[in-house]
């Protein structure tokens, strides 16, 4: 199976060149295969979010190389990174960051709109399909701020998938939800992973949910300390 994501000696320091310079990631080597559903675990402050931001091209590593689908992203200029991010990566954040001024449907359309520039009928259809799949078809015209946490997180998942990305990065997507909603949201991501072959990298503190993944990676103080495969990925690779 193809390597979707390759991290090669990724280091990240904050406050570079000042007396308080601190290295948060101390040389991360990691390979994610296409179609994997991976849990990233570790104590608070160990650098999980930092790693996710680097993988998501929101932040640059201080040194090391990051390959996405074979391309060395450390060589790309900002505009190219932005485009790659829009096309290949979907985000789900802990505090279900929808844009509160927009409705559920508009939030899902947003990544497509950013890419195409103008809304059109196929976009709206696609957004409605995704909302149906996350079980919120009836809520499409509700403003994000009027939805519950679990609902917002489902919309966020639909939005993350809108551009049919290669990789979805989720930073504690269930951290703010009750157990039942958390399980629901997790299953939803898992279902998309199985149906579409989208790769997921999910940060979680929840061992029960982690146990349902393909693979668990442990990060402690900026170093990878464990990498357990729980089940083999034997399904067909991503269509299209």
């Amino acid at each position, binding site marked *: 199976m193809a390597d979707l994501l390759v991290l090669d000696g990724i280091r990240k320091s904050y406050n570079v060149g000042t007396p308080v310079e601190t290295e948060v990631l101390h040389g991360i080597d990691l390979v994610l295969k296409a179609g994997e559903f991976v849990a990233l675990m570790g104590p608070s402050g160990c650098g999980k979010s930092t790693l996710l931001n680097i993988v998501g091209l929101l932040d640059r590593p201080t040194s090391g190389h990051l390959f996405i689908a074979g391309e060395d992203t450390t060589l790309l200029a900002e505009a190219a990174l932005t485009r790659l991010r829009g096309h290949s990566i979907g985000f789900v954040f802990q505090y279900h960051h929808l844009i509160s001024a927009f409705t559920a449907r508009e939030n899902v359309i947003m*990544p497509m709109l950013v890419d195409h520039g103008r809304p059109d009928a196929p976009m709206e259809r696609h957004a409605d399909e995704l909302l149906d799949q996350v079980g919120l078809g009836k809520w499409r015209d509700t403003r994000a701020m009027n939805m519950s946490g679990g609902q917002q997180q489902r919309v966020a998942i639909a939005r993350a998938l809108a551009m049919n990305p290669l990789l979805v990065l989720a930073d504690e997507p269930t951290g703010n939800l009750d157990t039942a909603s958390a399980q629901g949201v997790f299953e939803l991501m898992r279902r998309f992973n199985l149906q579409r072959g989208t790769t997921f990298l999910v940060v979680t503190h929840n061992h029960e949910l982690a146990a349902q993944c393909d693979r668990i990676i442990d990060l402690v103080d900026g170093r990878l300390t464990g990498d357990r495969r729980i089940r083999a990925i034997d399904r067909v690779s991503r269509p299209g």
Partner: protein
Amino acid sequence: MRRWLTFAWIAALRFLSEGRMQTGFILGGIAIGVGVIVFMSAMLTSVQTNFTNRVLTSQPQIQLKPPDEVARPLRRHDGVVEAAIVQHPTQRILSLDQWQTILSSMRGRSDIVVATPSVSGSALAVRGDASRSIGILGMEPDDYFRIVRMPDYIIAGEPSLGTDDILVGIDLANDLGATVGDKLNITTGPGGSRILTIRGIFDLGNRGANERNTYVQLRTAQSLLNLIGGVTEIDLTVVDVYAAETVAQDIGAVLPVKAESWIVTNAQFFTAIWAQTLSSLLIRSFVGLSVAFGIAAVLIVSVLQRSKDIGILRAMGSSRGKILRIFLIQGGVLGFLGSLLGSFMGGIALFAWYRLARQANGAELFPLVVEPSLFLFSALLATITGVLAGMVPALRAARLDPVEAIRG
């Protein structure tokens, strides 16, 4: 979502309509600013236009007169002035030398519309026990009334003049207790006296002129002032009223006459206009500046409030340029909508002022001159101001680090 809008417009309009309070207050602020500017500009234009019109239709734009008589001091052969104190000679009423030639050369110029001769001097008007000193102006009505729109100012009688007729001002008529059809005894130093009939009474809107100015036929004045065959001045109107001074200087340079333009004789008026224009320009700039600061302040707050949204949009792949545009558009839209509201408010204020501010007799103070271009111009200016004011907030939004913004 409107299909015809682009991403930046959709986001900008939604952010504006979402922050209803902020948007409402700043629109109110912009509207008041633009309203004040519109009101002031319209007022100023009206006052200036009306004053200029009045001046231009009640006096010639250029007058050609005989040059001042000067006394030449005696000099010895080596150039030393012998009589150091020179007394200014008395200025007699003199006829313009060669006036027929000058007149026809004036009529031949392409930058001159009307050229007509006139005779002026002072006299005493007597009726019964009352007498008043007056100025009499003799002219050829057909041409002269194209310069001074006497028919517009006549309030009783008519502006037609026979050789024994006279037009007088309303205040002179009141002082002498005379009305149309009454006779006045006009006496001058050099020419004796004549009985003239009041044909019409005018109101030039100026007390001094209404007390002193009287108009008679050219021949009547020539005989009264003992200037048979002569004229004391040639009155002109020009094609471009604001070029009158240049034309006057041009004429003065080639002909042996003193050419005075209305720009020089009304120098005070022009100084007043200049001061008014300058101060209103200052006021308008400062109002515009405070509107700009208001827009910038509101947008800065909006950037802070929406920094998470901006972070998400960046995570979704919107470039810094698109984020920049979202906030510039907000600034422009605020400026534009504010100026529409402000134009409307300014228009209402002008209308209210026009209805309420009246002369004692209920007539309008002066007609309002409101040009549509004023509204277009202020809308354009407000929009540009809005975009410029949005610059700082927009740059701030575009420079946000998405990681920081999302972590919030």
